[in-house]
């Protein structure tokens, strides 16, 4: 970008004293960012809590419309992707270029599988008029408070899916960097930071799945 910023052969940016300081700053920055993400999703979780307690029966009925098998498969896929992500971070620490590349792509593919399944689910909802809006129908009736459940379902899982797309983009970029041989300290840290983000997004799903698919299901 600029003449002097990011000079010093690429590893250490000019304004840091040493690599250790740079690594700590990046790590703290990532954690602070994840805190903002918690609050970002937090508003939706708050809305969910309010409406679930206001309309428990409608939420249970609406929840029954979700495909818990697909949801369960997706949960497994996502946990698997976190595992491959950890292996990518491990490979980065060992500076094994092809392993980093391979595990990053395994993670990306699992993420894509998740999004594909999500697409199938969304498509079903669309066909059954379960997307909130003027065309919403629940068991043949125009929207009651069941619509609120689906409004939250689409907002929450949509926002989650959006985060996965961003995450996959970052991982693709890192895999290119890995091939270019960026095994120096900041490059290694970057894989770790992306890992933190990926695990966070995974963790959001770990909350979304029971709240949306399972809770009150058999009522």
């Amino acid at each position, binding site marked *: *970008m*600029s003449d*002097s*910023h990011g000079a010093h052969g690429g590893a250490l*940016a*000019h*304004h840091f*004293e040493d690599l250790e*300081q740079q690594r*700590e*700053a990046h790590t*703290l*920055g990532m954690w*602070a*960012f994840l*805190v*903002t*993400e918690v*609050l*970002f*999703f*937090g*508003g*939706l979780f*708050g*809305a969910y809590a*309010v*409406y679930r307690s*206001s*309309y428990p029966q*409608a939420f249970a009925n609406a929840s029954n419309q979700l495909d818990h098998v697909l949801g369960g498969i997706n949960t497994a896929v996502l946990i698997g992707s976190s595992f491959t992500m950890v292996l990518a971070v491990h490979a980065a620490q060992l500076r094994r270029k092809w392993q980093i590349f391979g595990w990053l792509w395994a993670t990306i593919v699992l993420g894509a599988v998740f999004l594909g399944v999500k697409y199938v689910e969304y498509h079903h909802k669309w066909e059954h008029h379960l997307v*909130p*809006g*003027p065309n919403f129908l629940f068991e043949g009736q125009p*929207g*009651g*408070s069941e*619509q*609120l459940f*689906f*409004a*939250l379902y*689409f*907002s929450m899982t949509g*926002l989650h899916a959006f985060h996965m797309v961003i995450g996959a983009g970052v991982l693709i970029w890192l895999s290119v960097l890995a091939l270019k041989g960026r095994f120096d300290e900041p490059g290694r840290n970057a894989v770790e930071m992306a890992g933190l983000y990926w695990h966070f997004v995974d963790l959001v799903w770990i909350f979304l799945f029971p709240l949306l698919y399972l809770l009150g299901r058999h009522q």
Partner: protein
Amino acid sequence: MSAAGPIPGPIPAPSPALGRASRENYLTADYSWRSWLLTVDHKRIGILYLLSVTGFFFLGGLFAVLLRLELATPQGDLVQAETYNKLFTMHGLVMIFFFLVPSIPGVLGNFFVPIMIGAKDMAFPRLNLLSWYVYMIGGLVSFLAIVMGGVDTGWTFYAPYSSTYANSNVALTAVGVFITGFSSILTGLNIIVTVHKMRAPGMTWFRMPLFVWAHYATSLIMILGTPVLAITILLLALERLFHIGIFDPKLGGDPVLFQHLFWFYSHPAVYIMILPAMGVISELVAAFSRKRIFGYSFVAFSSLAIAVLGFLVWGHHMFLSGQSVYAGVVFSVLSFLVAIPSAVKVFNWAATLYKGSVLLSTPMMYVLGFLGLFTIGGLTGLFLACLGLDVHVHDTYFVVAHFHYIMVGGAVMAFLGGLHYWWPKMFGRMYPEALGKFSAVVVFIGFNLTFFPQFLLGYLGMPRRYHAYPEEFGVLNVLSSAGASILGIGYLLPMVYLIWSLRYGPAAVQNPWGAKGLEWEKAPTPPPTFNFDATPVVTQEAYAYADDLPAEPTRPEASYV
């Protein structure tokens, strides 16, 4: 006598260019447009913020002028009610999201937090630049919404009016505010990491200037509160565009939920606006009393206390919104608690003045204005936190006067004071002191004339957000409008003479105020790109004035011949 020696040596004659000094500084390092628009230097980004917040300030001010013109007469003769609704909405939106929130952190915080802790730059210089671009994109989107006909929901975007019924550019404005929020998040994140990880050797937490503490507390609010605003605005946009029902009572949605989510950010946002101002005041009080600030650690922790308590009081905006009475009681009590750390600050500033060697310079005059006005604004806030009294004054001009005493009498006064104080460091030029004092007085008089009558109007029952009013409110409204014109002059004056001083002001020495702090003692004027010639090593507490207190305070006027 140390580096704080009061009397500057012979003043070099002002020369046409800023770079009169032989050494290169951040301003003279490169003159190209590209070097400004792609800069990652926190000081240049601060200047970019200064230019943009000034632009938005005068845009918001223009709306205020139109509002006060309309209210000069009881009838609605200048604008229609609908236009008036748009004017007060856009005044609020521009002033809050595009001026007050980014003003002190974006300009003074960006410029001075790294210097005050002895760092070469923010922890994330590119993110810093990105935050300015995000701010500008959000600002331009909102500006586009204004140009395309404006928005009339009030800056609070209350549902279901905003989500279902409003017939103005709600969605586009909301997108602008949504985008700008991320700028705030990025700034906050950057400051937090900078304060944690970039401090110079010896700069312990309790040697940090209180300006840095205040910015740290502000940044905590920015990263914790702003994402909630973002999601709220997103839900509002979804509701408006797709009618998903989340705030629509017809579908079981609850408009009060919108208010809860909105104020969860927007009440702490008040502290995003005032905490950095308090940081500025702490610096100025110490510098112009030539005394260590009284109760340093209390002032530092009161910033954090305000940041934490600020998250627990949002319900006091909703006493009349159908929220439960018990919630109202709790929110009322918690709101009273915020008064404690705020009062700790005011008392400690007053105690710093006591037996200090006070110099009534321009920045100090803004400080004294701040102390009085903030105290009035804060105490009237307690009136509003009373469940009973709030019923009487809710949504009246009493509320309008209250928050203008905090936002304008507090935050804007501090911003102007800070801008004068650090102007020599930022640009290497002194501003004209006599004019500075004069306009500080004009601002103070104009402000009080504008807003004090509004307390009376509100108490007498004049509701806010109407373009016409009964005859009997006429006198007080005329006073208020007259005051607004004086206040306007008070704001135009500094802009004129500060710009004038860039070219014709006397050259500033490194430490024209004889003040303590790395920005004065170690950083050249104006600072070079990396701020210091060598990484400073800190061996003293902040504001260590006592040891070398000169017999007479510095008189920078001496440099005007």
